[in-house]
């Protein structure tokens, strides 16, 4: 009898032990509180130092191992408070600056009037490349601004349903037009890099304010003046940064972790705001701001007097090659 009783006791103990290990809460009761506290302390310190708490993961998505990432709060704060300020100052500030410039300086006219003689400035492939990049940029900029500001500025105007539909299509356009934009950047770089290397003459041009600040002043310039070279490099470098950061946003499994993804989001957003502001100035001077400028990208041909005033050295080179008229009679042609 005693042996069967001890056997029964052993069986009950085994069953109790089985329940203890099967139930997680019950199993933890076996941990010493002091040991538990040391581990919790390490966890809290990791959170304080801005590090993140991760666990072990068995699925291929390594980013899913992230449990808590306090830096995400800083990223959210940047996106909600600092980025709108950067965007507002850059974009609205540029609009204001251009409006003031137009009011004070007025449209930059051709001093000697149009001669009526034209010379080819941009071939059709160059214009194609420019408009490929520019048209993609416009859609990318507007759809991108919608992502940043649409909910606050556009949604109240259109209502939730219309805004959601528009934003859905805008997102698709943004994602896929990025590719022809990147192609346009590469082609632009290849065909125009040789004319956009900075030189001594560019410094002289900058010192004279490009001649745009006052009438009658026309510092010499080759095919592209210093302002245009600046725009070229802003487009190439800004575009490259947008392309790289955008690539990581298109394929979010590429960055190592969520912190890297947040970093690329910040780069994409900040560079976008500055890029848009710079392009506003470019669009202004190429359309409203300067008489005769749009023809360069419109028809590809510019007036000889316009070219002599703004790109005198380039005209001399073209005349030497026989591509431009010598223009002995380049005074204004009266309307008939």
């Amino acid at each position: 009898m005693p042996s069967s009783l001890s056997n029964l006791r052993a069986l009950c103990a085994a069953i109790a032990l089985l329940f203890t290990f099967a139930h997680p809460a019950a199993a933890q009761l076996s941990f010493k509180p002091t040991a538990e506290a040391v581990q919790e302390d390490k966890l809290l310190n990791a959170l304080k130092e801005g590090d993140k708490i991760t666990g072990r993961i068995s699925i291929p998505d390594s980013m899913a191992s992230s449990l808590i990432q306090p830096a995400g709060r800083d990223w959210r704060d940047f996106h909600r408070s600092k980025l709108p300020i950067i965007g507002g100052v850059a974009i609205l500030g540029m609009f204001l600056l251009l409006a003031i410039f137009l009011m004070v300086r007025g449209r930059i006219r051709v001093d000697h009037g149009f001669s009526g003689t034209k010379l080819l400035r941009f071939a059709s492939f160059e214009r194609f490349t420019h408009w490929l990049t520019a048209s993609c940029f416009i859609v990318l900029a507007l759809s991108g601004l919608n992502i940043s500001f649409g909910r606050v500025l556009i949604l109240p105007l259109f209502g939730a349903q219309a805004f959601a539909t528009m934003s859905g299509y805008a997102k698709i356009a943004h994602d896929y037009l990025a590719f022809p934009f990147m192609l346009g950047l590469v082609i632009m770089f290849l065909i125009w890099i040789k004319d956009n290397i900075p030189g001594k003459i560019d410094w002289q041009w900058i010192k004279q304010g490009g001649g745009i600040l006052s009438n009658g002043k026309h510092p010499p310039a080759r095919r592209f003046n210093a302002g245009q070279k600046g725009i070229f490099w802003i487009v190439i470098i800004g575009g490259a940064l947008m392309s790289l950061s955008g690539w990581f946003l298109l394929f979010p499994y590429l960055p190592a972790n969520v912190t890297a993804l947040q970093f690329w989001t910040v780069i994409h957003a900040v560079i976008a705001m500055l890029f848009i502001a710079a392009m506003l100035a470019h669009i202004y001077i190429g359309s409203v701001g300067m008489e005769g400028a749009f023809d360069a990208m419109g028809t590809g041909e510019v007036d000889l007097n316009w070219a002599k005033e703004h790109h005198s050295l380039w005209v001399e080179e073209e005349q030497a090659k026989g591509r431009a008229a010598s223009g002995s009679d380049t005074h204004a042609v009266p309307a008939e």
Partner: protein
Amino acid sequence: MKSFLAALAFAAIAAFCVSSVLDTIQQASSVAYTTSGARVGDPGNNLIGSN
């Protein structure tokens, strides 16, 4: 004008081609992250669904 219109058309066609290519090579996360050891079930009609 011709260059401008050609550029618009090219951009639209290129974007469409890219979307077609990416649609064929990319997988939904429920497919990509399923292995023999971890099954990510059909998400149905939620935000990450195949539609």
